[in-house]
């Protein structure tokens, strides 16, 4: 459009057309500048939940800090086709929004590279820049649906436990941070909205017998499947209140209960046979 008007202006020598062209050029220059500045000095961090399972969608928290004086607008943070929009972030302020992600493989892996994109200030160009991270995350083995017999030893199947837990929903034990493991409907949305961080309702589990899981005893086609089943057992047994231990070919982890212990076991499984 500017070119067309510019062409007319030159050919007619009409100074008023020149004015229109000049203002368009000015606008392009200013909007280019604003658009360029818009992506500068924007710092992005990712908060990962404690438990990330391969193949299971999880919510990452994208923290955005605008370190400029001016506001940052229309920032899209994109990860594998999914994106989250920060419409307007005032200068010097922070904002956080959840971004759904899915990791297919277990083990230690670098945080995925995000793309920061923006069409600001005018929807003519998209500016983008890659946001790499130095940090790493550990993805636990894939969880599987278990048949009741494998859950073992006259215990109730995990599904039933969870159901019982949900049955006690009125007497929830405490509110804790979202770890990635909890079903989405357990998220306390009201509280999450107020605190800029996902919160989940947690229920007290019943106590049970100690349990030792032997990786090599698990009947499965390959190592990955065995690890996957082991992880599922660890998760469900601890959730059911059994102090649980792990028997790996090289070493043993004695049974214990609690969240920290669970994470320790899952970590062992996630990193088994991997650097």
């Amino acid at each position: 459009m500017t070119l067309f008007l510019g062409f007319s202006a030159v050919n007619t020598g009409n100074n008023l057309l020149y004015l229109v062209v000049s203002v368009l050029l000015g606008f392009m220059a200013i909007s280019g500048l604003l658009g360029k500045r818009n992506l500068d000095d924007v710092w992005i961090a990712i908060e990962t939940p404690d438990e990330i399972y391969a193949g299971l969608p999880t919510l990452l928290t994208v923290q955005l800090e605008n370190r400029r004086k001016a506001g940052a607008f229309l920032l899209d943070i994109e990860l594998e086709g999914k994106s989250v929009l920060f419409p307007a972030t005032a200068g010097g302020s922070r904002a956080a929004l959840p971004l759904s992600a899915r990791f297919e493989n277990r083990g230690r892996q670098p945080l995925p590279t995000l793309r920061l994109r923006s069409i600001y200030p005018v929807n003519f160009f998209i500016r983008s820049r890659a946001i790499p991270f130095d940090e790493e995350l550990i993805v636990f083995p894939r969880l599987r649906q278990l048949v009741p017999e494998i859950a073992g030893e006259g215990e109730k199947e995990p599904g039933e436990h969870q159901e019982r837990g949900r049955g006690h929903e009125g007497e929830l034990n405490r509110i804790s941070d979202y770890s990635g493991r909890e079903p989405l409907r357990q998220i306390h949305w009201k509280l999450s909205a107020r605190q800029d961080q996902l919160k989940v309702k947690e229920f007290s589990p019943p106590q049970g017998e100690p349990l030792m899981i032997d990786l090599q005893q698990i009947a499965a086609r390959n190592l990955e499947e065995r690890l996957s089943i082991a992880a599922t057992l660890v998760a469900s047994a601890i959730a059911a209140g059994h102090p649980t231990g792990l028997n790996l070919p090289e070493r043993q982890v004695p049974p214990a209960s609690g969240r920290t212990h669970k994470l320790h076991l899952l970590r062992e499984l996630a990193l088994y046979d991997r650097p």
Partner: protein
Amino acid sequence: MIALRTLLNICVYSVSLLGVAPLYLYLEPLAQIVLPLAWGAGLIADIRKRPLVPPLPATLISILVFFYYAFQISRTTLVEPVTNILALLLVIRLITAKNSRNYLQIFVLSLFALASSTLLTLSLAFFIFLLLQVGGITSGLLLLSFFHRSPELQLRPPQLRTLLRPLLLLPLGSLLLMFLFFAILPRTQRPLWDFLNPAGSANTGFSERVAPGTVSSMSSTRRMVLRVEGPRQATNDLYWRGIVLNRPVGGSWIRAEAPEESVVRLQGDEHVELTYYPEPGASRYLPTLDTPERVTGFRTRAQEDLIFTQRGHKNQRISYRGISRPGAIIITSKQPESPFWLATGTVSPRLRQTAEELKNRGDTPSERLAALDRFFLAQELTFSVEELSLSDDPVDDFLFVSKRGYCEFFASAYATLLRLLDIPARLVGGYYGGEYNELGGYYRINESMAHVWVEAYLPHGGWQRIDPSLFAVNAEESSLNLRNNALSWSRQMADNIDYLWNKAVITYDFEGQITLARRAGEQLQRFEAKSLLEEGGKGGVVLALVVGGAIFWFILSRRRETPRQRLLHAYLKLLRRRHGITIHEGEKGLLALAKELKDSEAIHFAQIYSANLYRDRPLDAATTAALRDSLRRMRRHKG
């Protein structure tokens, strides 16, 4: 919470109104009726969120409208159909449902509508419309980008406050840059599509033929013909030279090819530089303050008797600069050739006898000239533009019977007598007087100031100006003397704005660009000698503002960089030079990159830098020094 769509609608409806308003009077009745209706209906429909016309019929109507008017387009009528197309397409867009693309179309159509109005009128109102529209369109486009990304977005008050800054910055920045681009955009000397431009109104001003006695009264309008920018001049110097008439034919004087004589120099001490802004008119002669030395301007041509004409399109608004020496005598290379310069038209016996008597009163031309002056005074002639007698021999009638007349009578009678006294003479037509506008520092010359005077050639002298009208008995109180009246303050103000608009915008051309560049260069050279305040008189202020703004912006953007960022940029630049690779900030971990390059100095820098970065604290003096030191070493051992 404010819905984005509401804000966007406000922009769209004001922008479309501003775009079509300057065109409205030039549209066809159909568009004139439909436009306000559609505007109102669209507004109501958008408030109720119920579009009036579904997309498909709208598209069909658009196509019909387009072809109906497109077939009317020809070489002579191009602008009118186009404006009607623009207006009606805008109508259709206003009454249909709007997605982000439609909003954009409305903005574009509105801007085109405003732009096309420049082909119909050049009034100052355009500038006001443009300013408002720029505000509307830039804000609208900004909001549109939000709308495009998330149509149902609601903005919270704090977010709106954050958005206020770009909403102001965009239009203001665009307008500021507009002045810069306007000054530097390339211009051609002769535009190709000149015929598309609106013609200035035609004026008559002084005529190319002096024929006293053909009308009984002279109408004099106060229509402006010329503005001249420059210092105030002495009132009796305000002769604006337009045309030289050198051959009497019957009772009138015309301009004919004169024998060759070139001007050697002007004899006069003063030296005035003036800029002229003639109103576009019928005359191709360009008036200059008598006596002009030279005129510069791409579309001007000089002639031997110091007359300047306009080349090319007559109805174009132009400006030119001229150097004059007020009242100077024109020294020529040789004496005027007698047969041409002494020829007279039909001369009555009474006039011839008078000339013989005057001849006997002196032998030298100066003595005869003095005698002629005495004769003119003795005749007790009256300057008048009314109740003039019509005559076949106006000069005779004027001098001996009616004794009434205006400048043409005085000048032609005087010049005829001069020639009869063997003194070469010619008539000069132009203007006398001028209203000086103190605010703008310019003279305003209108049609009623048209005047004719005489130039006589005296041996060992040159061509000298003589105004015989001053011999009138009522010269003091005649309309001649009322020509220097000042305008009322309010009229001066209004005239001033119009003047500035024409001067700064409408007549700005290639020559203007060169002048501006030259002046900027000169000012830069003299910069040390004078203070900025003294320098910035005219264009200098604008230029200084633009340059200042640019410097300010540069400093501001530099200052926004933290010391850490500056170090990082320096480091990345060095890496680029040492290893010939392009690195974008944040593409890769610094340490990883340095290790990959196997550059020990770089690794050293990256280690210090990263260690500090993760502590998330501002750089302390020691770390800064260490980083600088590392950079210095990198610089020393290049590659």
